[in-house]
């Protein structure tokens, strides 16, 4: 599945990475405790989190997570957006809850 496919199913605003939408996403993880994400997050995957501070980009870079989805239209800190642009990480902001987003992606055939 490509990030492009996700954009078509999840209502969203593309915050960063419009040139990266052809990237393949191989799995997903949902979580807000960073160490848990570090231990379990999938490579080349997608991550849904309510955390919006700049350190989520460090986690994404280290795990090679290509796309972060922020649920419930939670405002994203400007330095997080700046860092994501710099590191080539796609951020999507969605009005849906994490539960709803994960459910829809799972319904599309995406695994954890």
């Amino acid at each position, binding site marked *: 599945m490509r990030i492009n496919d996700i954009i078509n199913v999840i209502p969203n605003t593309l915050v960063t990475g419009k040139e990266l939408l052809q990237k393949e996403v191989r799995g997903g993880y949902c979580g*807000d*405790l*960073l*160490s*848990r994400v*570090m*231990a379990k997050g999938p*490579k080349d995957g997608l991550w849904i*989190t309510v*955390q919006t*501070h*700049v*350190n*989520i*980009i*460090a*986690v994404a*870079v*280290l*795990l*090679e997570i290509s796309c972060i989805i922020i649920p419930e239209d939670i405002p994203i800190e400007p*330095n997080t957006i700046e860092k994501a642009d710099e590191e080539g990480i796609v951020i999507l902001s969605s009005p849906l809850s994490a539960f709803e987003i994960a459910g829809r992606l799972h319904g599309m055939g995406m695994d954890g």
Partner: protein
Amino acid sequence: MTRKDRMNSSMIQVYEIESGNFTKAGEAAGNIKKLLRQLGIDAGVVRRVSIAAYEAEMNMVIHSIGGIIKILIDPEAITFKARDTGPGIEDIELAMKEGYSTATDFARELGFGAGMGLPNIKKCSDDFIIKSEVGVGTRLEARFNIST
């Protein structure tokens, strides 16, 4: 230069870690990851070192008064060392227990303090030692074998 040439000699990198700086946190781990990739180290090893480096760095940012991270790369293994100058861990056995954390509410709100930092480092490494003394500081060493 071939991968073999680059790997023939040992390499040491040192990073200073600042206490409480959540904005910079993760930079050292990121730099270590980039360096290992440039050296052509196996992707699985790079991922394990990256996770360990991140957890150690975050531990120092959250809990210590500051310290140093050192990475030594030689043809057989990568050795990661973290040393801080305090406050030290009272009960290491407890600190090694998954889910146990002494992180502040502020750190927890940011998603830190899951109590998985040290167990994650241990799981990722081939060899792991931690020593700590209250009032002196903590030293941690993790070794990652490079399969050839």
